[in-house]
């Protein structure tokens, strides 16, 4: 766990009252997690700390609920918890002497405080973490796009949802950038990012000039709520440039759905044939997924280009979104998102079914990192 620290750490106490008032004489038990988060719960004289906590929505690690397995153990730091419920239990006298109690059998005889040895986020599993990854691949997939592979095998407990992004500290600097993960949790401990390379830029300079396989990189995340919605309706995805990254992750999530898989249309666009990338990856998804249709466009084709010229927004037609339940996912630069929103609205798509992930235009790369923001818009702005 050396490389891992939980990013969130607040000392706030949230008071929770039990949903059922079975209280004759109830006591207040304060549950303090390893990350400093504490919750208070009222526990009646014939109730147990575990039962009252679970009813109040406080998740505690437990299994057998009968004093046998030992997983719900906590350490009393003040007050008294009694385990004299008439059942046997697995704690040794030496553990009892240290103040350890099994919360599934424990009833408070006074107000009490219990220390737990795991963080409050443990059972949620969705909090951002600071982790260290090792660069395992750096591949130029287009003239201005690098696929960056990172090995997070030291990041015990790290997880994310398809579509989320990570903040990345550029090695040797104090600069941070945000990049969506292009792979899925199935590929962990490997994650891949798609990085657009600029003529000048701190990350661009690093990847072009100094990056070596094996370099350590600090990351923080996951962040964001851009993710696939459960729906059997068609999913329309519009990606511009490296905005393809979270879409790749979501495509591979759809590919692995166990059960009926929704139909997906992906419209992907880049500025020019030279900047197009991941065509092999998209062809492979088309081969693997009978439910997927992919359209690729470039803004300016040139005389010899035989593919479609246009933009990825215009490539989506009224027929594509004829089903009023169609879900849309947009990821790309701000003008593309705005154009897509108004285009989809004009085609009759419900605004609440449109989800967008904005990435900062390249010129704002440093601005974005300074603010530490990456806007995820859940709410349609149409």
């Amino acid at each position, binding site marked *: 766990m050396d490389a891992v620290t939980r990013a969130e750490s607040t000392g706030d106490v949230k008071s929770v009252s039990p949903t059922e008032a079975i209280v004759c004489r109830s006591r207040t038990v304060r549950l303090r997690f390893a990350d400093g988060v504490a919750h208070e719960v009222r526990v009646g004289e014939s109730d147990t700390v575990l039962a009252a906590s679970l009813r109040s929505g406080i998740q505690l690690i437990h299994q057998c*609920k*009968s004093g046998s397995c030992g997983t719900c153990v906590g350490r009393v730091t003040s007050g008294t918890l009694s385990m004299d419920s008439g059942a046997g239990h697995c704690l040794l006298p030496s553990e009892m002497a240290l103040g350890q109690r099994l919360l599934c059998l424990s009833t408070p005889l006074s107000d009490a405080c219990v220390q737990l040895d795991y963080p409050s986020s443990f059972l949620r599993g969705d909090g951002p973490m600071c982790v260290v990854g090792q660069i395992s691949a750096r591949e130029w997939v287009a003239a201005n796009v690098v696929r960056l592979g990172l090995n997070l095998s030291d990041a015990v407990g790290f997880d994310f949802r398809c579509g989320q992004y990570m903040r990345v500290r550029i090695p040797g600097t104090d600069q941070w950038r945000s990049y969506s993960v292009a792979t899925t949790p199935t590929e962990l401990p490997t994650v891949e990012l798609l990085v657009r390379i600029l003529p000048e830029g701190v990350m661009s300079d690093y990847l072009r000039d100094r990056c070596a396989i094996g370099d350590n990189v600090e990351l923080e995340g996951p962040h964001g709520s851009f993710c696939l919605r459960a729906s059997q309706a068609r999913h329309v995805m519009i990606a511009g440039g490296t905005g393809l990254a979270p879409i790749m992750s979501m495509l591979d999530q759809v590919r692995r759905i166990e059960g009926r898989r929704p139909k997906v249309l992906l419209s992907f666009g880049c500025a020019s044939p030279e900047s197009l990338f991941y065509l092999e990856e998209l062809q492979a998804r088309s081969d*693997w997924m009978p439910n997927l249709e992919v359209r690729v466009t470039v803004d300016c084709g040139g005389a010899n280009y035989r593919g479609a010229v246009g933009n990825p927004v215009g490539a989506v037609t009224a027929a594509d979104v004829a089903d009023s339940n169609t879900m849309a996912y947009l990821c790309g630069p701000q003008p593309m998102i705005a154009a897509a929103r108004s285009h989809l609205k004009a085609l009759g798509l419900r605004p609440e079914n449109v989800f967008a992930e904005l990435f900062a235009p390249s010129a704002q790369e440093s601005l974005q990192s300074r603010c530490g923001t990456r806007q995820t818009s859940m709410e349609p702005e149409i």
Partner: protein
Amino acid sequence: MNPDASRTKRAGAPSPYAPYLEAEWGFLNHWYPAKFSNEISEGAVLGLQICGIPIVLRRSKGRVYALKDQCIHRGVKISARPTCLTDETLSCWYHGFTYDLETGRLVSIVAAPQDKIIGTTGLQTFPVHEVNGIVFVFVWSPTWKGDVPPLSHDLPLAFPENNPRFPHPLWPDAPHLLHENTVILGLHRLGYANWRLAVENSFDAGHLLIHKDSSYVRAKNWALPLGVRPTSDKAIQLIEDEEGPKGFINMYFTEHWEPVFVNERLNLRASGTGGAKYYRTHIVVPGALVVEAWPEDEVAQYEWFVPITDDKYEYWEVIACRCRTDEERASFEQRYTTLYEPQCLYGFNNDDIFAREAMQDFYADGAGWSDEQLGEMDHTIVTWRKVAARYNRGIAPKPRGVQGVVRGQAVDLANLVGAPQVVGRRAKAWMP
């Protein structure tokens, strides 16, 4: 897609059938044959493993139930020492954790009827379809959502229903597994190779060489070709109906395939002089094969290669025959016993088992999947890989806590040498 064809393939680009390469432990959410009906009599309890998932079968009041064969308590195989205390339940022999056959729910514990865990947990259950003497199990993931597809979606197509699409003027309609009046006789046995090597061997268009001197082929005096080569893009015809099985038919004995009877350079000729044997192979995901008009015109041979672990599979070989009367049935049974089983399922197909096991070393650590050099005869192999990559309903993850994950354990070695007093020996119902 409309990529510019002038672009060349990148070194780091994905394999066109990468999901198939991931499927070392098989494809989940498909129907697989588990046992012959007559292997599991009333009240019987049997264990087996499919795609790394231990499964216990019990027949109660005629019906076969399938549950995960791993007690939630300490993980032992429930089938290791069958214990049934009521018609509706299955009990673990160790501490008496007792599960409802229908729902898998933990309904009691022999020695702890008050335990709070009762009613809060249970075993995964699996859908069962028993038909024409075979018990099929839908081996699904706990996260499968939606309806269970019908068994027919995981079996080869039926004839004569599909004659207009896939005509076969040279032999009668193959008896289908699901048809009334179909009698199925056959066997299943353990194969020591990855299941994909077995599937690929089964319809390999270039592998007839290994059967050249089979005693069955010699006795029939058939001019079995040395190989067959595809001559048009209609040689392999895909089956990818929205509601139906997904696979393909090798359209042998049409103008789209050319049989090779002689290799001048090597001075080798097909041996038989009695004329050609017409037949056709047809395979669907997750690996259900039929050889129409084989071993003889009026019957069909069906095969499955059911993954057990990533280096063992259960090889199912059955002959299906249309029998409308008791006389026809008796005649088929006699022919099966005296000819098909000894000369075909064992004699002829033993050569295939040999080939699959011979391939295992090259592919076991992944080398073969990247280093193999394929030729024109392998068109059909690559088609299978792509179809399987596209239409499988889920890739079985490498499991945890089951037989075959950790290799060479003392208990496995003890089983090999037949040491007495080893509980595991009683769990090997799927061993030959």
